[in-house]
């Protein structure tokens, strides 16, 4: 897929992936093999960053020969650097040699006990070995020291979700919302967790947070759908009387309207007609009204 690409194009794509932290390992490896590799002297000092990038991508694709080449070239240039050792550790991980990997990370931490990458790799090993509760425990310890690492909070949330521990998963998102109150995605995910938990109290929380996510970003379709579902759910099961039901019905209709506008303005007519979005929204609203 990369054959016809020029050297500069390929180089720019790799740079873009590095800057945006895009994980498209397959493409990275093929750009390397088909375009960059033979002309890598033209990269100048950028070559070291590219080696590192290609190495992790090759590990993702189980192409150990490429990864090994990258590591040995990097090691010649930056002998025994911690960053190279981490790659070596990841290589062991990809080959399921977890004990050797663990050893590598322990050595890194002996030299630099605040090395957060090594700490996180150790947790990744536990996850790979499906020791989820141990991974959770270690990640909690990690987060006591690196409280602002939002990716780690997100990971912890997903680990709790794997264990169906929704309250703790929700707690992780509460932390994230507190430190990033304007990020609509955190509000949306919090709402999704509460919705999954179920019960009228959680459903009300879900509706509130979906609504907040919509307010922060009106283009968030997941949040609009979430608002639609949670409001219609509350509307049809409401035990709080007719007024409450009317309110929820109003919210649901509003959300349905917004969703329809999105589809009408952005989706081609033929797709809209065939995928029956309008029909599904209308039917769902009708069923609450008559309940």
């Amino acid at each position: 897929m990369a054959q016809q690409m020029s050297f500069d194009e390929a180089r720019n794509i790799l740079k873009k992936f590095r800057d945006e932290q895009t994980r498209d390992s397959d493409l990275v490896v093929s750009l390397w093999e088909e375009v960059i590799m033979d002309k890598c002297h033209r990269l100048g000092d950028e070559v070291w960053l590219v080696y590192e990038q290609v190495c992790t991508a090759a590990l993702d694709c189980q192409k150990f020969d490429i990864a090994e080449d990258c590591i040995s070239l990097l090691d010649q240039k930056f002998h025994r650097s911690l960053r190279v050792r981490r790659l070596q550790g990841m290589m062991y991980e990809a080959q399921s040699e977890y004990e050797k990997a663990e050893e590598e990370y322990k050595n890194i931490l002996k030299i630099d006990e605040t090395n957060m990458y090594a700490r996180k790799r150790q947790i990744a090993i536990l996850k790979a070995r499906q020791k989820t509760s141990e991974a959770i425990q270690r990640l909690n310890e990690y987060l006591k020291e690196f409280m602002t690492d939002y990716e780690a909070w997100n990971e912890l949330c997903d680990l709790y979700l794997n264990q169906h521990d929704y309250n703790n998963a929700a707690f992780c998102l509460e932390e994230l919302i507190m430190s990033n109150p304007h990020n609509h995605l955190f509000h949306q995910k919090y709402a999704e967790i509460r919705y999954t938990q179920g019960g009228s109290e959680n459903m009300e929380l879900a509706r509130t947070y979906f609504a907040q996510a919509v307010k922060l970003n009106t283009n968030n379709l997941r949040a609009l759908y979430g608002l639609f579902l949670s409001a219609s759910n509350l509307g049809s099961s409401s035990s709080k009387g007719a007024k409450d039901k009317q309110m929820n019905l109003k919210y649901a209709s509003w959300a349905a309207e917004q969703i329809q506008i999105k589809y009408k303005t952005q989706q081609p007519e033929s797709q809209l007609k065939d995928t029956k979005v309008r029909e599904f929204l209308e039917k769902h609203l009708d069923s609450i009204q008559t309940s």
Partner: protein
Amino acid sequence: MADTSVSLQAHCKVLLHAAKYPHSAVNGVLLAEDSKNKDTKSHRCVDCIPLFHVSLGLSPMLEVALLQIDAYCKSKGLVIAGYYQANENYNDNEMNHVARTIGRKIQENFHDACVLMIDNRKVAAETVSQAYKIYTFKETGWGTIEKKGNTEEEILKEECVYALMKSGAQRQLKDFDNHLNDVRNDWRNLELNDMIARCT
């Protein structure tokens, strides 16, 4: 027990979905023709709709997807007849809680529903044979069924998936997560369907 088989189109899209997101879990549903005739001894999954590659364990977007797909199916004379999943962990191809729960829900509506669990180790152009196990629900719980399928068909499927993966067709596949990011992304994957049809 009814016979279960998977069409070429469904087979290819299931595996391309897993190939597109090698580092995360993916899931989706299988569709069969809705036969009112109750005596049919076999059912064939003719198509599949790829659903998610992030947060498989949360229910609201799954509900949205299933409601929408159900409305689509009714208009096409199809029915949701199965479910597929690939786990996040490379070496893990067991049914987990999510697969069992969704599988059960589908089974309540479609008695002979099946669940396909993808073996991540087989999702690559060169190694793609018997890349998933098929489970059906019996009195005691989910159990695998032996894949009979005539071998000629199996070989054709493997060749087709090989060609598609080699050409990078997985990049064109759109799942419901892609759709929620941008509604222009069509989860029916009509273009990909054409490519698969041309493969034979």
